[in-house]
């Protein structure tokens, strides 16, 4: 496996970076999982079955009885509760995925998950690598704590970077956070043995990956090639992708930051001015214009027919009606290449499109850390950034982008400044008790967001996995683990 490392730890309770999630998924089993790249419905895994209460506040998981950890000991519900409590209480990056949830073990083979609010996405959340189940006894010996004060009491440090206390198909053979993770097949794996005895996840520069995958003599997968790079590869390689990333503008609604962007008419005019089809082409053949905030890979995405058409006259009219004459705005963006695309080329296109509607945009690239700092402080009048879901639940966007939520506040979008229709649409998403109901509510929410929010979706592009011809089951998964390593086989 060749990938540009995004990796801090192999501790499931703190992992949220892509490379770490891929390795952790192979070492730690979860209650449920996904079948290949389809992330619409969680499938039984450690739990042989699960059921939801009618109000989607209580989920009961029944564990299979043959699952064992890598040391041969039996996995039971106490291990599950310990692992999920630790995830919640450690206060790491993935902890917010289980906020408001509590976990109990009425007997050795049953786990009950209770949510404060209706949440039909709980099985999806529990499929994430961060919800991997660890051997509670072994973890405790290493200093792990699942108590409420785990953020300070847990002393496991980096022990889980080298110790394998999961029940997954692989165990950790060696770990170097900057260059290489070596996994070896778990001889005591309770499920079907993986095809490969040894898997090496190696940090390789993306240009290097492009050359190496074409000359690969062994089974190999490259994970960082972008759309334009893939177009030039030989047909013998297997390419798969999933439209899981979105790119959007955000116009600050705080008048203290910008009187111009604070006017909702500005966002609407800019949204009409941009040529989304032309912008998508800049990302390569795999990209599409964005219809809404949810990328097409996830349930709840708007159909492509909902992509807002370009309307320069309409944009000018909106600005004139709002009394915004010759607006001049600074657009700040991170000066990075993301998935092979220089973000500068995208914002330059936005600048050109906006100029046709009479909007003057000054481009200001910033180093990524400075950008994150400015964005976090809510200081940007107009910002541009890529985003993807931390876990395949589109409703998480409501938690972050609804008026008054974290991301929305960074654009000055408070509840007071929001249209009631958007708030109502968000509430409907959070009140939904089934996946289908929630997906429908998400679509309506996006329609309202397109009409009223400070966020202007531009395009979606794919994460891509390129594999040598002899491999099977190498499809790119938007689930967070990129490629399901235990399932990779040969023809």
């Amino acid at each position, binding site marked *: 496996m060749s990938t540009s490392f995004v990796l*801090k*730890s192999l501790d499931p309770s703190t992992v*949220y970076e892509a490379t770490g999630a891929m390795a952790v998924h192979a070492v730690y089993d979860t209650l449920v999982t996904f079948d290949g790249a389809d992330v619409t419905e969680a499938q039984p895994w450690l739990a042989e079955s699960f059921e939801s209460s009618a109000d989607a506040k209580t989920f009961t998981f029944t564990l299979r009885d043959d699952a064992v950890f890598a040391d041969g000991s039996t996995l039971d519900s106490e291990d599950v509760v310990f692992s999920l409590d630790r995830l919640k209480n450690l*206060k*790491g*990056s*993935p*902890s*917010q995925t289980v*906020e408001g949830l509590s976990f109990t073990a009425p007997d050795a083979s049953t786990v009950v998950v209770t949510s404060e609010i209706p949440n039909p996405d709980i099985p999806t959340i529990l499929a994430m690598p961060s919800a991997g189940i660890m051997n509670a006894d072994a973890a405790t010996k290493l200093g792990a704590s699942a108590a409420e004060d785990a*953020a*300070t009491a847990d002393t496991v*440090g*980096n022990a889980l*970077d080298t110790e394998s206390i999961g029940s997954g198909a692989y165990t950790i*053979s*060696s770990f*170097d*956070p*900057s*260059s*290489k993770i*070596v996994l070896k097949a778990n001889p005591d794996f309770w499920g079907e043995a993986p095809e490969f005895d040894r898997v*090496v996840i*190696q*940090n*390789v*520069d993306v*240009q*290097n990956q492009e*050359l*190496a995958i*074409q*000359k690969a003599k*062994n089974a190999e997968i490259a994970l960082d090639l972008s759309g334009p790079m893939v177009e030039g590869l030989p047909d013998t390689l297997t390419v798969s992708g999933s439209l899981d990333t979105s790119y959007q503008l955000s116009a600050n609604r705080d008048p203290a930051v910008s009187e111009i962007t604070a006017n909702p008419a500005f966002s609407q005019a800019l949204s009409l001015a941009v040529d989304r089809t032309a912008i998508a082409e800049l990302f390569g053949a795999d990209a599409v214009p964005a219809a809404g905030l949810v990328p097409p890979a996830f349930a709840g995405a708007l159909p492509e027919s909902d992509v807002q058409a370009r309307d320069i006259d309409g944009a000018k009219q909106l600005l004139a009606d709002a009394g915004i004459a010759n607006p001049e705005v600074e657009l700040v963006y991170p000066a990075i290449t993301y998935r092979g695309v220089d973000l500068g080329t995208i914002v330059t296109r936005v600048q050109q499109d906006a100029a046709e509607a009479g909007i003057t945009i000054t481009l200001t690239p910033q*180093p*990524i*850390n*400075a950008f*994150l*700092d*400015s*964005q*976090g402080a809510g200081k940007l009048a107009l910002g541009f950034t890529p*985003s993807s879901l*931390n876990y395949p639940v589109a409703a*998480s966007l409501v*938690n*972050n982008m609804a008026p008054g*939520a*974290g*991301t929305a*506040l*960074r654009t000055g979008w408070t509840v007071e400044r929001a249209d009631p229709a958007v708030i109502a649409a968000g509430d409907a998403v959070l009140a939904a008790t089934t996946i289908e109901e929630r997906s429908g509510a998400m679509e309506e929410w996006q329609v309202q967001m397109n009409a009223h929010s400070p966020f202007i979706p531009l395009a979606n592009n794919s994460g891509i996995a390129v594999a040598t011809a002899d491999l099977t089951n190498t499809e790119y998964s938007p689930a967070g683990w990129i490629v399901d390593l235990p399932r990779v086989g040969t023809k």
Partner: protein
Amino acid sequence: MIAKRLGSALILLWGITVITFLLVSVVPGDPAAANLSPQAYDDPEIREAFERKWGLDQPLIVQYGTYLANILRGDLGISQQTNRPVLQDLQQYIPATFEIAIPAMIIAVVIAIGLGVYSALRKGTAADNGIRVFSLAGLSTPPFWLALLALYLFFYVLGWLPSGGRLSNDFDPPPSVTGMYTIDALLAGQFNVFADAVWHLVLPVGILALLTVSALLRFVRSAMLEVMDSDFVRSAVAKGLPRRTIVWRHLFKAGLLPILTVTGLMFASLLGGAVLVEQVISWPGLGNYAYRSALSLDLQSILGVTLFIAIVYTVINLIVDVLAGIIDPRIGHA
């Protein structure tokens, strides 16, 4: 003299910790924003836990005091990006960089001295012009571009060399003694691992050597040319001394001092400055570590790398001064 220089070096290193600490602290960027997911960053409880864990909730002066006290105990702190002690990281990544920097420097010095002396002795000839063009081209070539070009040619087109990394995926690293795979493999008697490690060294060492030769040979040439105009050289020629004796015993010895100084500085710069080459060749060395530390605003790692580079510069300068005193005893008394 050495005791006095050591005293100055310690003050210099302390000053470096102060300056680096302040610089890293005033650089725009919030370590919590750089290390947490946006959603986690928006959660005050998670953000507070992060800041408490890394001591970022303390006043700057307290953070610095803690850092300095820890350094004196040999503790460089914990890296936010690797979750390991910075000292452990440095112990792993420094040998990897040494493994390419030392052979690159040796090769570069030998070639640069040879070509520089040759070029100076044939000043104005086609050979001299050719060598100067070569040097200028090398100096003008961006290191990452040269690395990509070399990778394309020797891996992709010719297939002679591997695409990067320290070892092929079929091999595990040898038991660590020095951290340099070639030496450790020999010590462990793993000759196939040794051969594979050497094979992986060729590309990065070649690139770094080429870049270093280009800069160094200009210094050698100009140092030699400067000495060639000296009276003692004209006297040696007038006395009828053999050409070889004039060149190596008089000319080269007199020009050695500036060459020695520049060589020392270039070696130090090679240790910390091979970032882009290490990135392209996927070499897990100090440059790569420094690059990743900067991207994630990993304060402890940045300070650790800076301190190490400062120590290297200080030690190399000390060695150069001592050697200079041996070459020219007048310097020792100055």
